[in-house]
């Protein structure tokens, strides 16, 4: 992720895709986003962790979809026409992130990003790599590697 950023944007700038989960705003580095798809019903996988919504057909490939709300310890995303799946790529792994809605693309100087404070009480914070403030709103930058269902891949 960071490699991509270094290559594609100037070192001092970072481009983020921000999206909404419930009332909170999150974002991912736009270089790891491959596409954004409308909601389609996912085929559930047996014996999968609860945050794995299932698999969908992405033009012929089988794409696992992660319900980001559940992953971050919130109520599951409802799953209707307003929801979207952000297809992200991390190295060789491709996965879909089910979110409530995509809101914006943000161009920020890298210096605006600050590390999250260390709050042991909140499990979700380990999924966040940085925080930033845009127009008075706090936006969390997701650490993709920790969000994707890598456990399943390792177990295989």
């Amino acid at each position: 992720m960071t490699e991509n950023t270094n290559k594609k944007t100037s070192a001092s700038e970072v481009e983020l895709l921000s999206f909404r989960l419930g009332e909170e705003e999150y974002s991912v580095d736009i270089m790891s986003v491959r596409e954004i798809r409308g909601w389609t019903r996912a085929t559930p996988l047996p014996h999968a962790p609860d945050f794995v919504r299932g698999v969908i057909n992405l033009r012929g490939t089988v794409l696992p979809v992660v319900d980001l709300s559940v992953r971050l310890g919130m109520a599951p995303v409802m799953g209707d026409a307003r929801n979207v799946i952000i297809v992200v790529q991390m190295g060789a792994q491709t996965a879909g992130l089910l979110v409530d809605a995509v809101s914006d693309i943000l161009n920020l100087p890298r210096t605006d990003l600050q590390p999250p404070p260390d709050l042991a009480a909140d499990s979700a914070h380990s999924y966040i790599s940085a925080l930033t403030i845009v127009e008075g709103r706090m936006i969390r930058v997701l650490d993709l590697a920790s969000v994707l269902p890598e456990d399943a891949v390792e177990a295989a």
Partner: protein
Amino acid sequence: MSTDPMAEIKASFFVECDELLESLQDALTDMDEGNYDSETINVVFRAVHSIKGGAGAFGLDALVAFAHRYETVMDEVRSGRLEIDHDSLKLFFHTADFLADQVSAARDGLPEPDGSEACLQELEALMGDALPAPVEEDVSDFQPMGLSLDLGITDAEFGDFGLPSLDDGASENDAAWSLTFTPSDALYASGNDPAHLLRTLRELGDVTVRCDLTALPEFDALDTPQSYLSWHATLPGELDESDIREVFDFVEDVCTLELTRETQTTPEADDNLSLADLAPQVEAPPNSVAPTDIVPTEPPESEPNNTAPADNPAAAPAPVTPPLKGAPQANATAEPGATVRVDLERIDRLVNLVGELVINQAMLAQSVAEAGLPQNSKVMTGLEAFMMLTRDIQDSVMMIRAQPVKPLFQRMGRIVREASAAVAKEVRLRTEGEATEVDKTVIERLADPLTHMIRNAVDHGLETPDIREAAGKPREGVITLSAQHRSGRVVIEITDDGAGINRKKVLEKAISKGLVPPEANLSDGEIDNLLFLPGFSTADQISALSGRGVGMDVVRSSIQALGGRIAITSEPGKGTRFSISLPLTLAVLDGMVINVAGETLVVPLSAIIETATLTSDDIRSLGPQTNVIHVRGDFVPLYDLGAELGYRAPKSSYEGGIVLLTAQDDGERSALVVDAIMEQRQVVIKGLQQSYGHIPGVAAATILGDGQIALILDPADLVQNASGRTRGFDIALAG
């Protein structure tokens, strides 16, 4: 590195080596079956020779040295100075195996395999005093020309020219050799230079060369890429024919070469084959072509095509070439058709795309059906044609990936040789149906289980020669490896003519290991199937071959991973047969589409033996949580698919439910409760492993007509990982 042209050429040399090694094995097997004709021996010689030549070009000295010594011995055989018998053949096989090792050592940059020197010495001992001094410069000669291997020049037609050299008697005739050398266009196109060849020829001795310009057209009509020239040479009679031919070794299929004694050879000096080959030359001796110019010993320095034109175009070569052309064609029947080497990745891409096409076509069909068009509408008929076309394309694409099992079987030949030597048994491997084609992946993944089974057959299946003799059987045991297509699947059978399975011993072993309760009453088939249980090994002693902890259970699971089944039959005193049945391809599968708790799933058709609707009489409660059903006298464990997959809680009653009766290869059956059976169709397999990982009970996924993903179940895996598994052993065997 990938842009290094030399590396590319080298890679193709090794591909060629594999082919040569294959034909070497073939010819040796042929000889083993008693076919000692000179053509076969020649193939052996040629294969070794070509490997040596190519290796020389790449400076693979170890390989060159090895091949050279092997070749020297083969040359003795070829010239009839060395008799072939069973033992020497064995040695030839052994050396061929080492040659294969040498090739792979050279390819992977590994050190020379151990024992090759000993093997060579043993081989050379065959020749006794007849060992001729090795011709060292011979090797260096190959270096400049060896490169031409990559230019598509193979030894395919050697046999048509090389045979006359076999007869040593002919060379006692000391009349001068007359050589006519007519290069074809391809010779120039492949970067060979006649001047170089002729110069090498001159090094052989007192050689006179004339250039024949009769075919040269007028300057205006001169087409530079075409070949118009030929050369006549007179060579001293004491030269060996093979030495002369060796000069043209790497160009022989891109030129016409005639080699005769000045005075006609006497008929008895030639063997039958060479007589046939020589006949055309007798009718049209090279001298009938009137030379217009004489070039003493030295060909023109410039490219021959650019030399001044002479008159009398085109007439001259005609009488010489056609008769000779006919001969190779007649003998070329064994040669495979033209082939193209394609990167496997490209084929896989094509296979994937065709998979997409199949899915798309299904989606289209579904939406057309939903639109409610009449059956006889144009759209419907067009769609039907499209469907058939898709199916055809799919089949053809799958065929591309299919490969004959022959290389695999040849590897097994080596396993048999090594294994039988290790346990001092005499074993012959017979192969049948080598041309049977199977998906490349299947072949690759079949090598290990097959190796294991062959070793088992040698070690456990066959008796020692003495015991065999006592039982009235020939000392040499036979293992037959066969492949054939049978109703859309490939069946591979490994049969030995050994003592068969010692059922008493197997049962005792199983009981002592606690795999079977002591009081169990098992049928013969059930006892045979005990071999597949994990942790089972009948060998009392750990021999060099077996007892390494890898059992038949591993073999079975690797076969099952390929979607295959394995069965065993045995007859005391007569032998044992393992039969492996595999799907033709791993990309498509015939499945039954079912519905469980609102989810669509696919069950491989090959796993289903029957479907049934349950009545209250069928269902028996086994424990508080488990049920069995009663099917024609047998009790079969019942699994609720919806509950096993976590889609819903187990039902309170299964009365009226639909079950799929599935069987595993050991005959163990299980009944899976489903909600509905939708249809039976072919589905394209999409791997889940790469994108997600392994899910217990799920083999893969597929995309249905509505674009939704459906999971393909693996019933055997599902049952193994099932939650409520409380079956007793006797029930498992009752199936």
